[in-house]
């Protein structure tokens, strides 16, 4: 067991434990804070996977923007933060069963696959050169310039739509 495995196990424990808290905590602000713990654990995994750019973007976008949005939305939509009613609906045992079945199904399918023990290869040119390659890939016409511009349109549509829906006084 080497250092990267220890880091993986610690962050996986953080991710799973806080994800369970996200779906089970009664107080929604606390659930959002637990979500931040999960997201931070995922950011650590990205760093372990040599995707440093994604690790910081995970913190900037998810923790800095999306989690803040969730906290704002919770404060905006509940008159009483300490909700007394049950937090899960009547069919929660079915949902739990479905979740377990999904996990079991993926587990069974994966265990039949022979690529599981694969180990990471060397990155050509080193991990530091990846960032410039990402920039070139995002804007070169043979690669991903269309997703790049479409993402811009998508976000524009999301901005217009969400602001309109949120501000509509009627």
């Amino acid at each position, binding site marked *: 067991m080497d250092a990267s495995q220890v880091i993986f196990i610690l962050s996986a424990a953080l991710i799973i434990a806080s994800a369970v808290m996200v779906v089970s905590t009664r107080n929604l602000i606390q659930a959002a804070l637990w979500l931040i713990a999960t997201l931070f654990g995922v950011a650590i995994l990205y760093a372990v996977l040599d995707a440093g750019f994604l690790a910081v973007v995970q913190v900037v976008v998810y923790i800095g923007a999306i989690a803040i949005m969730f906290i704002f939305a919770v404060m905006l939509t509940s008159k009483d933060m300490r909700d007394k009613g049950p937090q899960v609906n009547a069919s929660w045992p079915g949902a739990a069963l479905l979740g377990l079945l999904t996990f079991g199904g993926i*587990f069974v399918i994966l265990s039949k696959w022979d690529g599981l023990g694969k180990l990471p290869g060397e990155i050509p040119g080193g991990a530091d050169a990846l960032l410039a390659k990402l920039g070139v890939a995002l804007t070169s016409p043979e690669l991903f310039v269309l997703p790049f511009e479409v993402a811009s349109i998508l976000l524009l549509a999301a901005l217009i739509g969400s602001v309109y*829906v949120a501000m509509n006084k009627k």
Partner: protein
Amino acid sequence: MIPLSWYLYLSAALFSIGLFGVLARRNAVAILLSVELMLNAVNINLVAFWRYGNTASMAGQVFAIIVFAVAAAEVAVGLSLIYSIYRRRNTVIADELDLMKW
């Protein structure tokens, strides 16, 4: 050295927890929180397959960034819809939003 399977099992577990949250929580904001868990599980898979596959191509990372954009758009529109519903119906409990159920 971490084998690929660890990431895949972790992501499957995270996805299942998120699925449970989406199906079981009553509060609409909590459902969106669980959707975020599922999107993160997908992203772990994308980045892991990129790292363990062909690192010369940046496709995995670009896909992950697109997923970030989609998640942001989803949160923006979803939370705005929830807020809009809250202003009209004064509730965010998904079970009580049964206007379409006659």
